[in-house]
């Protein structure tokens, strides 16, 4: 058991932190106010070669593992950009995963280099409003006529669709009634997000304003058969392969945001003097921050363990889910406590912790809620019967 990072991993952390450090609090507060996509940040990360960190080197990626990707996203989220910075590039890391794993050589050649260079932006169209967490209940359909599929339906929460020219899309290719089990009949497409057929409506939301989330209304979107990934009807299984990496990344992102919040609060607690002494001298201020520090460290370790299991191709579902749960909860608690530490000033935008709190909530809700993780752990780790 070795908990130290290699020289290369340390360098990744330092370099990412350095790139992120160029984007100031003012930059991110500005983006949060206007809602403009952080394109400068996205470009800087693409230029540094970070978008292809997990992609195969023959297509221009760095071929590094998930552990490295997690270290990188931890640094990104820990920067002032928080979830806005993370979400601006996050999809590049786990989103193309099904392409790498199940795509043909031709598809990889067509798609990966552009993704790695940041020329294409992709969004992820899975969630639907009627299905919610029950992904296999989605209703968007893809019906094949000749060499094309025609997609109809609606997606919700699709992040970055305003920017994206590609979409990773889950749709039903076989009616549910005709399927043997609930995971059958769904297919995964990677295709152009053609605005002639897709109406994209922005969802005004609580935080992370700079990275849009949307409702998509899809009407007869033509998808050439070359854009189907792998075999028809196996899309849900393919998707499962990218779920664990996504959970680990969301977990470390929440942790990074929480650590940023705790650092800001500790700093403020040393400087702010009330009743003749720094507020940080009070146990009601110190102890909760200390508790958060420990929870974040512990969550980080399990996330690292999950990533390392994944890279060694060992089962990592339990640990990946635990990392997302613990990270999400610890990050949320840390941000809440940080805001409370600032008192009234915590509510003011110029101290940034309210922005962190608004953004960290995403890590609790998406891509899977804490309750669903508890369900999963109860079933898979404890062998208890399914409760729902």
């Amino acid at each position: 058991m070795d908990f130290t990072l290699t020289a290369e991993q340390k360098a990744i952390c330092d370099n990412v932190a350095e790139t992120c450090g160029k984007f100031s609090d003012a930059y991110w507060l500005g983006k949060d106010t206007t809602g403009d996509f952080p394109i400068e940040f996205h470009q800087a990360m693409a230029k540094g070669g970070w978008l292809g960190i997990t992609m195969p080197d023959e297509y221009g990626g760095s071929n590094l593992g998930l552990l490295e990707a997690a270290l990188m996203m931890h640094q990104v989220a820990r920067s002032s950009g928080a979830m806005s910075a993370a979400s601006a590039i996050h999809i590049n890391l786990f989103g193309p995963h099904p392409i790498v794993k199940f795509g043909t050589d031709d598809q990889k050649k067509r798609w990966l280099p552009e993704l790695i260079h940041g020329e294409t932006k992709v969004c992820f169209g899975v969630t639907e409003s009627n299905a919610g967490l029950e992904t296999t209940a989605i209703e968007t359909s893809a019906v094949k006529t000749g060499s094309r599929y025609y997609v109809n339906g609606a997606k919700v929460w699709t992040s970055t669709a305003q920017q994206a020219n590609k979409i990773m899309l889950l749709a039903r290719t076989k009616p549910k009634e005709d399927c043997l089990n609930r995971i059958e009949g769904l297919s995964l497409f990677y295709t152009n997000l053609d605005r002639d057929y897709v109406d994209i409506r922005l969802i005004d939301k609580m935080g992370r304003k700079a990275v849009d989330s949307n409702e998509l209304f899809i009407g007869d979107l033509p998808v050439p058969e070359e854009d189907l990934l792998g075999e028809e009807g196996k899309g849900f299984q393919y998707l499962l392969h990218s779920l664990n990496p996504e959970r680990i990344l969301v977990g470390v992102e929440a942790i990074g945001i929480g650590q940023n919040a705790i650092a800001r609060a500790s700093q403020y607690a040393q400087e702010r003097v009330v009743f003749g002494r720094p507020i940080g001298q009070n146990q009601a201020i110190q102890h909760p921050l200390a508790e958060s520090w420990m929870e974040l460290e512990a969550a980080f370790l399990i996330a690292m363990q999950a990533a390392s299991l994944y890279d060694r191709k060992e089962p990592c579902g339990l640990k990946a889910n635990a990392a997302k749960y613990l990270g999400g909860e610890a990050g949320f608690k840390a941000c809440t406590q940080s805001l409370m530490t600032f008192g009234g000033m915590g509510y003011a935008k110029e101290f940034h912790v309210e922005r962190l709190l608004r953004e960290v909530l995403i890590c609790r809700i998406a891509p899977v809620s804490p309750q669903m993780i508890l369900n999963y752990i109860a079933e898979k780790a404890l062998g208890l019967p399914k409760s729902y």
Partner: protein
Amino acid sequence: MDFSFSEEQTLLKESVSDFVKSDYAFSDRAAVLESEEGFSRKNLKTFADLDWNSIPFSEEDGGFGGTAVELMAVMEEFGKGLVVEPYFSSVILAGSFLRKAANSSQKEIHIPKIIDGSKIYAAAFSELQSRYDLYDVKTSATKEGAEYSLNGEKIFVLGGYAADTLIVSARTSGKPRDLEGVSLFIVAADTAGISKENFSTVDGFKAANLKFENVKVSAGNLLGEEGKGLAILEDVAAEAIIALGAEAVGALEILYRKTVEYSKIRVQFNQPIGKFQSLQMIMSEMFIEHVQVKSMLYMAVMKFDAGEDVQKSISAFKVQLGKAIKFIGQNAIQLHGGIGMTDELDVSHYFKRVTMIGVMFGDESYHLDRYVRLSC
């Protein structure tokens, strides 16, 4: 809404409180626990002499005609002293069955014996499989001419160890979990066919598991209507929760007060531990939990006396009580540190008693679930 006690109620509360202070010091109680029976007959006589046994019974039955408010007043004070005599199990619990279901001749026979303290009563309604479901009754009562024959087992009969007379639930028809078909019987504890296994509970009380083998009970000892016992059981349980809950509220008050006192005298790092802010915060919350659960108790008592929403408010109270017991009980031990774990200090005894009350007549999650069911 009036939350103050009447003069009479105040006097009653004070008389119980005086008894606890003068006759029920921690060392007196320890001696009682050491004794053969595990409780003091002398104390039982005092209760009768001071007329506390008559409180729940109506004036026409020779009682004082008290409401749930009087019950609460007595039990809260008993809770402060961790009184182990079978007052709750005999006077309140078993007595409640008689008050609610007995016919006039049954009342005439039994109630005076409870009031004068000459006999001890106990109620046997829990079974191994029943958990908190009062209708889950396997013990059977089969009618044979002018008699019933009882067969089955009852567990955790509070005060069953010393009881002269038992109130027993048994099924006269239907399947084990049917709501209908549960009947109640008055049974002399020495009737042939009853065997007892006595045991002590963690909180210093005594209970018994009872086995019934062809126990003959005359039809005249059927309590209430045949097959309609569940409604009575539920009524009795509601009252029992109020009484035990009041006892717990009294004990919780002592727990938080003792913790605060201790924090002022225990010195660490050259200062009383009560100076540490995080301990102050915990103690403030213990105080708040106590006030909250006491308010819920008042609410439940008032609803009970008014006959409004009784079962719902009882469940709400028991949920809050469960939370308060955990929070105050566990933190009392925690803040006392190592000494809180010892038998020599009364804190651990209070902890054990309130913890037991937390699971009697339904624990927190049972009542939360029940509250939800009653609300939809």
